[in-house]
């Protein structure tokens, strides 16, 4: 398949737009000078990812991503940013000033993975394009073959829930104790 063939498929236009959006948002996530902006760019990146999932006919996963991530996780992040009183304005001290090595390393990772992808798969087509995954199949798989991991994950979530509360809970200072008692 030549580049021409590739561009002639309309779906690839959609893909390109989404991909660029994802990469751009991702780039801003790691470079933004403002913490809130970074979190918001993450929303962009994740939304783009969800779009890519839709292209791959994984509807359930796409919407899960939107709901769980954009709906819950990012909100959590924003909470975290507020609570830790990270400077919401421009903050030059947000990054370390040693960017060369991480840059090189990241580039190397990208190069390596890209090379691996081309080397292994070249331009092979995706077979299931356009056929939406049956959600029933997904459900059966989740609660059938993968039921034990499923349960384990639920425990992990529970653990994380309890753990998060335990870790983040603050012992009241004596003054606060008194205040609470007074109320």
């Amino acid at each position: 398949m030549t580049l021409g063939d590739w561009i002639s498929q309309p779906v690839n236009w959609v893909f390109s737009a989404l991909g660029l959006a994802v990469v751009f948002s991702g780039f801003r996530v790691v470079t933004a000078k403002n913490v809130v902006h970074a979190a918001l760019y993450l929303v962009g990146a994740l939304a783009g990812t969800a779009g890519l999932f839709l292209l791959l006919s994984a509807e359930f996963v796409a919407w899960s991503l939107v709901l769980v991530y954009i709906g819950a996780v990012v909100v959590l992040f924003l909470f975290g940013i507020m609570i830790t009183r990270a400077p919401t304005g421009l903050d030059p001290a947000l990054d370390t000033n040693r960017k060369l090595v991480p840059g090189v390393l990241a580039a190397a990772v990208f190069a390596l993975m890209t090379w691996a992808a081309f080397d292994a798969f070249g331009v092979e087509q995706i077979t299931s394009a356009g056929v939406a995954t049956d959600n029933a199949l997904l459900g059966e798989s989740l609660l059938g073959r993968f039921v034990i991991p499923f349960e384990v994950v639920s425990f992990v979530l529970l653990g994380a829930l309890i753990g998060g509360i335990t870790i983040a809970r603050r012992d009241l200072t004596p003054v606060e104790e008194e205040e609470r008692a007074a109320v």
Partner: protein
Amino acid sequence: MVTAMVMAVAEGVVQAGDGGFFADTAGIMLILPFVAFALIMTVGKRLPYHGGEIAVAALAVNTVWATVLFVMNMTGGVLDQTTFEIGSIGSGLVFELGWVVDGLSIMMYFLVNFVGLVVFVYALGYMHGDRRLEWFFAAFSLFAGSMLVLVGAPNLIQLIIGWEGVGLASYFLIGFYWEDLDNVRAGNKAFLTNKVGDVGLILGAILVGVSLGTFDLAELGAAAAAHDEALGAVAVAGGLLLFFGAMGKSAQFPLHIWLPDAMAGPTPVSALMHAATMVTAGVYLMARVFPLFEYLAADTRQLMVVIGAITLLGIGLLALVVDDIKRVLAFSTVSQLGYMMTAVAAGGYTAGLFHLFTHAFFKALLFLGAGSVIHAVHSNNMSDMGGLRKEMPTTYWTFVVGSLALAGIFPLAGFWSKDEILATLGQEGYITVMWVAVAGAFVTAFYMARCIALTFHGTYKGHGHPHESPPIMTRPLVALAIPSALFGLLNIPGVSLPGIGSFTEWLAVREVVMGDHHAEAIDFGLAAIGLAAALAGLALGWLVYGKDAVTQMERDRFQVPLLYPLLRRKYYVDDLALGVVGATTGPLARFVNWTNNYVIDGVINIVGGAVKWLGGLVYNGLDQRGVDGVFNGLSAMTDGAGSVLRRWQTGRVQQYASAFVAGAIILVVLFVFVV
């Protein structure tokens, strides 16, 4: 007139029995002192005599046992050996402990126990009120036990155990007053000098034992008599090594340096260990392995005789110039050990051992007498004594008996034994050495006359009013004076006492074929020469010192230029030995330590530092973009490897993460592209 005396039992000269109950249980003698040691260490503090009574009781039982054996051996000969295996190795190496009951060991049992008992009793009085009495008696018991283990040894291994055991006890007792580090140093000197000799003993034992396949002494003797080939191959080297061990313990020149210093111990210790018994262990060893020298290693004799001769005359001369009465006796002991060693080396098995036997009594007597004097005047120096003959009659007379016996005056014990040595030397063709020995007899008599004159005659020069020691100390003197006077009669050449034979025959009761060379009759001419030399020495000594000079300077009228300083400095042997050891060991040790810390460790530290520095350089170089990084790296290098190391170890999680990612990338690249 040489007689190679063949195994007495085989020839029917003496009908040896197996000793019955007393021989079977002779091991009790070896064990009792150790039991006493343990008891004294545990309950000694609570007893009225601080454990002295336990030690005396143990030796008393032992003495009874030894005396019974001694008498049995006199009348019928006793030959027995009992061993227990304590371990063995597949290739036939067997280690055993046990006890030998034969002529030689019975003589030593009797000697050690009898003299030991007398000295222990004496010590009850001498040490009364001293500090750490229980430790004194415990260590003394330890010595007695080790000595018995040594003389009862059926094999070289047990002999080595006893050998080092007595060395240990000697170390403890020389350094008995360890608050003063000088005494400790004397103990160290003794132990280390002995240890040098022990290298010879251990290597000799290995050579002989491995070639023979056994460490058993009886088998060693038998193999030597049978001219065993394997043994013959190592006989000269092994014999010399064993002799080297004997030189250490029996204080032969030049390993004699420890013995005079060993006088730092309490006087009973000097009497029992550093005169009567322990120092004779070397002679005993030479007698035990006598067949080796007789049959296989005769080549070594010349050397051994010469060393003995140097010791007997050279070290004897040193006794002329010292002021410390114990040191006079110590030098005398070394000299007498030279006699014994010369005799045994020359082939005079009986002659050497007989001198060992008689010497033990009169030298112990002399030391105890000296102790009695020291006890009275609270000083070791003869310049603080004088005129004690009236205040201390018993001490005086017994001391005189001992001195005359030592000098070799007829008919006291020393006369007979010394005469026998002279006779053996003469008959074996060591004529020069014989004359050296005669000269030695002269010197001996001379310094003993000097000693008596300065100590007991003239006027008292010390402080306070000395008076005779209590009976608990004087009675042991008498108990030793009697054998000192009479025991020479046990071995008059050619005379066999009715019913009991002679010392020569008792000693000959051994399991192995022996090769003793001894005189069959008295050589009156030689005896006269020896006696004349001794008398001349006595007379000259009396002439010079009898008139009692007032000061030390005048008393030592023999301040011959060159010779006097030479003798005072003990031929510089001590200085040389200490100088060499001090000049080499210390710097060598420091050098080794320095190498360890700076060379070996230095290399390791530098490698470690360099690796970390390299890491730092790579990281910082990349990080700080080229030239800057290099310069920083260089400055880091000058800053020392250590500080660079810290930079690598930043504690910054992200730097670690970078390293992790980099590592992962490298691994992937390796696996994908290289492998």
